[in-house]
């Protein structure tokens, strides 16, 4: 038997939280009660806009997840299953990916053809439930997600003990890991020459800008999250913003999805509202694309895409977000998009020239300091 790894204080605390959860359930069972756990609700209804902190916070509403309830019995079972597995992961100090956890906890229930989990889509929300229920971060449960997103720029960091010069990583850049906490990713302020962070929605656009050495010309950290930035990227933005004082600029498609990425980066997400305090960057600025860019940069109609029903519905929902209520310019922006009935992809800027984005558009926008 391999020697037990030495556990950190956090690890012991997390194990204690899992023990408490299971202990409560067992004592309920011993008392002949319908066992339950109280799971904080991760929905819009239970999220709160904290105006002074400018972030979305999770409300206090909890849902009773009991076992003797046909609709949620399986979820109750799954919650305990995940808790049990996480305890082992912590005890062994063996972090695994959430997909791996899905495989670790998936098995066929004896005497049936039913599996404890059928898809990862079932286990992922259970992990999030567990996080909020026992107030432990995913990282503390020794779970990480598939890494997504990349970064380059004039900065030297230490990643799991390896020193990495982010300015010398060729065309691929540095893949942002899922866990970017201080114990994994370290830096010194003097090793950072960047003046700001540019978060690009798309990996392809990021690649183009990297090849054109945009980050070098403008002394910035060039980051992408391949769509909605995953937790690792957002946590990294947060740390760099707060620890290095770098302003964050967001460069996304001009569509509801782009607005939403901006919203999540700024205020945090509804689903992960409990993580907002350690991820949201309320000072993040929106660089583009803007629905007014079509006229301003003389983009022809043929590079636009018509809004569909979903886009319109989504736009209206975003308009109604409390944190955008008082942003007149932002309201005008979305209304203008709805009025014009079209959306714009970042790639539309290629209409003029492949260097147009790096040479004209971004410099112009940066000079203006972003829209909001």
């Amino acid at each position, binding site marked *: 038997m391999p020697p037990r790894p030495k556990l950190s204080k956090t690890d012991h605390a997390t194990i204690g939280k899992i023990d408490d959860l299971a202990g409560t359930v067992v004592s309920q069972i*011993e008392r002949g009660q319908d066992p339950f756990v109280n*799971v904080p609700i991760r929905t*819009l209804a239970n999220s709160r806009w904290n105006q002074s902190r400018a972030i979305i916070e999770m409300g206090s509403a909890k849902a009773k997840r009991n076992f003797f309830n046909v609709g949620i019995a399986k979820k109750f079972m799954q919650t305990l299953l995940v808790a049990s597995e996480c305890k082992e992961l912590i005890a062994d100090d063996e972090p695994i990916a959430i997909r791996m956890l899905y495989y670790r906890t998936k098995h066929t229930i004896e005497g049936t053809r039913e599996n404890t989990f059928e898809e990862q889509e079932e286990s992922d929300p259970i992990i999030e439930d567990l996080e909020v229920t026992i107030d432990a971060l995913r990282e503390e449960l020794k779970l990480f997600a598939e890494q997504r997103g990349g970064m380059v720029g004039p900065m030297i960091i230490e990643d799991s003990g390896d020193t990495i010069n982010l300015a010398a990583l060729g065309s691929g850049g540095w893949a942002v890991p899922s866990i970017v906490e201080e114990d994994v990713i370290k830096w010194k302020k003097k090793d950072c020459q960047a003046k700001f962070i540019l978060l690009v929605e798309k990996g392809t656009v990021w690649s183009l800008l990297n090849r054109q050495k945009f980050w070098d010309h403008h002394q910035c950290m060039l980051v992408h999250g391949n769509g909605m930035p995953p937790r690792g990227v957002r946590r990294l933005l947060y740390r760099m913003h707060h620890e290095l004082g770098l302003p964050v600029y967001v460069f996304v498609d001009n569509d509801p999805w782009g607005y939403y990425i901006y919203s999540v980066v700024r205020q945090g997400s509804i689903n992960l509202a409990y993580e907002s305090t350690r991820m949201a960057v309320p000072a993040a600025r929106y660089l583009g694309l803007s629905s007014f860019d079509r006229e301003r940069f003389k983009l022809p109609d043929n590079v636009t895409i018509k809004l569909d029903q979903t886009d319109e519905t989504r736009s209206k929902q975003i308009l109604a977000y409390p944190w955008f209520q008082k942003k007149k310019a932002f309201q005008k922006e979305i209304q203008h998009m709805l009025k014009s009935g079209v959306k714009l992809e970042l790639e539309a800027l290629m209409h003029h020239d492949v260097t147009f984005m790096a040479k004209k558009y971004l410099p112009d926008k940066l000079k203006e300091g972003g829209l909001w």
Partner: protein
Amino acid sequence: MPLDTVSATRGKTGARPGGSRAGTRQLFAGQAAAAPVPATATAAAPVTASSPRQADDGADGGNGHLGAVLFAGESAAPSGRSYVTAETLAKKQREISISEFFTKNRHLLGFDNPKKALLTSVKEAVDNALDACEEARVLPEVVVTIAQKAENRFALAVEDNGPGIVKGQMGRVFGQLLYGSKFHSLKMSRGQQGIGISAAVMYAQLTTGKPAVVISKTGAGRPAQCMKIAVDTRKNRPEVTESHEREWPERDHGTRIELEMDGRYQEGKGSVLEYLKMTAVVNPHATIIFRSPKGETHRFDRAVNELPPESPEIKPHPRGIELGMLIAMLRNTQSSTLQGFLTSDFSRVSAPVAKEICALAGVEPRDKPARLSREQAEAVFKAFDRVKIMNPRTDCVTPIGGAQLTAGLKKEFPAQFYASNTREPAVYRGNPFRIEVALAWGVESMTAPEAAPAPDPDADAPPRRKKKEEEREAALMQVLRFANRVPLQHQQSACAIFKAVMEVHWRDYLLSQSKGALPQAPVVLMVHMASVWVPFTSESKEAIAGYDVILKEIKLALQEVARQMAAFLRRKQSAADQANRRRLFDRYIPEIAAAASSITGIDRGAVQSRLQAIADRKTRQDEIAGLLPADAPSEPPADPPTDPGTPPASRKATKKAGQPSNGDVNPTEFDEGN
């Protein structure tokens, strides 16, 4: 017994001790020639009954409608009493009347085809047997044997343990058509098919030339009398070709009739077997044994050991008769005044009412009834409808009773649930009647194919097609109709019972029903109408006429049993739900025990058994026991995402369970990424 009650019981009643044969009611009242008073009848007896006993000589069938037909038909012939030519004509008529009448009207009498002839013969004999037993207060045991003699020839034997028939009556009971009648009898009785057993005897005789063989024994220690009896079709008289005594040790008393006739034997709808089975259902006090031509023996054993109560006779109610009957009654009454006739020959007619009727009809209460002209009779008849008359007494319709109905249904249709309802008596057109309904749900014979579904080879088949097949397979509700304990096998859709069944919104009672069709459910429904006079739609007596009040009564009775059934179905559904819940919990309990034990180190078995104890309580195992068949599909759903499991994160879950959306992502939200 009231003077004017024309009681006509079945032929065999003549065997009752003291049963007088003093006089036979003239059936063909309008034409004496066609039905001569049998020689054995007391010649001196006037045509009008002078003693109540006279009327006791009932003939089989008691077919009032048929009687009416005969009556009308015959009276239409010129009576021409004073003309020789007419008398000659009448004589000629007499010679051909019976056999010709039979041949021409065999469809009315139930002998229209060989299959039906066989069935009708069985019916007549069995009805007689049951009536005879019941009147003698003997629990009936009827043995029906049919043997095939040639391709289209069958030997039929029906044997009962009834009181037997005295020697002197045997000939007339079996060998004379319309020997007495229940035409004027208002008594709840089986009398149903045609003109009785003698018609079957005649049919046999006409098709094979062979007489009926009858054995009857009236008591232990006495010898049985054996006779060969034919119908003298010219004179409508019994023709006893052979008569001797013999031993019949098997029975203390009883009667056996053997007939050989042209026929066709088939099983299935409208068959002898079905008739006997339905008869067994509605006569749970009877044991019926059937030996079929196929060599099989079907036993329908009695389920209860009590005889149904005897039904008293009542006098007719003015609202319940027809003009022809009134004319016949006027002629035959013993009352010398019209008022006397009205008050004593009818029920619920008091002297003031009688006077009022007379006044309305423009006749004198003191008039002699027999002197009334046809027009005056009609005026009286019309007046009946214009005066206030109390409804007839209703104690003359005796119900079968809920317990008996259910017992009858139970023994022939094993099912999961039974309900019955007996309505209070009601009155249509002056005739008391009573509706009874019994229902069986989950009838085994109707659910059998469902219980073992063929494994679906093509699991990916579009669900719509599958559904269609299921629908096709679902059995329709079976409706068993009865009138005075006699099964009605034909003309279902013309019958008030069927109409009432169709008027019930069965969907309200949790059955599925397509428009214009019977519900699709493993249900056998039996509806019984008991009445002194069942209004049939036609001479074939297979469909009850749809008087509003009858329809209403049937519907109310149906709704009551349907309510009981729906309550059961709800209980059953809830039990099934609980069982499903339990199966779901049972699946997850070991998982929870294992996880909880792994985290806390507490013994896994202890957690598991505690959880199971809670599950017992939560799923009310004690309450659902017995509500579900043992072979209920207990296999948990193979693909859990459909029902119990955690839906994918983007789906709203747990709404059904009345829980707030539990940790689910708002479906309109974008994916956060991870």
